[in-house]
């Protein structure tokens, strides 16, 4: 079975996505959970580029533009997320995610 380059790229991004997902699910350190989510975002960006490069209508350049926006928003997300981590740390002196549950009902 021969795989087209597009399928290879998609497999690559799915693998990265799942690594991020497993990391986010299994680790208790909030920073690592955030990094896992960051990985999942990156995997999505890879899909955009892959479809832009090998997809049916590459000339539009939409994929590239979308990835640029996505990177900008991801940077914002990382900044806020890590600021939250620091704020949480200041309150409860650790950053274990399962202990940050004061908002539960």
């Amino acid at each position, binding site marked *: 079975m*021969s795989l*087209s*380059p597009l*399928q*290879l*790229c*998609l*497999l*690559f991004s*799915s*693998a*990265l*996505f*799942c*690594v991020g*997902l*497993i*990391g986010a*699910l*299994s*680790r*208790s*350190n909030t*920073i*690592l959970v955030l*990094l*896992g989510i*960051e*990985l999942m975002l*990156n995997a999505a*960006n*890879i899909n955009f*580029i*892959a479809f*832009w*490069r*090998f997809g049916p209508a*590459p*000339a539009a*350049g939409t994929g*590239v*533009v979308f990835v*640029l*926006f996505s*990177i*900008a*928003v*991801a*940077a*914002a997300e*990382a*900044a*806020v997320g*890590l*600021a939250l*981590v*620091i704020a949480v740390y200041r309150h409860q*002196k*650790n*950053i274990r995610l399962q202990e940050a549950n004061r908002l539960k009902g």
Partner: protein
Amino acid sequence: MTLAFLAIAFVTVAAAAVAMALRNLIHSALLLVFNWAGIAAFYLWAGAEFVAFSQLMVYVGAVSMVVLFAVLLTQRSPQSFREQPDSISRVIGALLVGGAVLGVLFGAVLSSRLAPSAATATPTISVKELGSLLMGPHAAALLIVGVILTVTLIGAVIIASTDHAESGKDES
């Protein structure tokens, strides 16, 4: 060509996997920087140079620094960046769920009708074209992103800043 892609993909995924498995937070963060650089290499391979440089600057340059700062600021003892071991049951659950998602995604990709398309010419997009795209059709989105970034900047500072009066009370 494909070989280069396979090498990049392997190194990137391996770096991510090891980063997620390591106990030492600093090592994890550094490996993730490596992983991001690998993704930038993928963009370069795919011909999206500008995105590759954005990725390098934003992730490898900026986000990595923020992450490292966060790691350093949230360690109580500077000697040890080691984590408590995570609970085994959750790790197993995570692996099961992640594996299920992986299986579904792989199945979907492999069974899809994305037939090997005829080798089309590599699409290129110059920085100039990209600029006119951003300032033309996508101008509204660009403005919104600008606002989001500003709000984020202010928000992050406010969330992370100490409340002087309150912390003073706590310490006294």
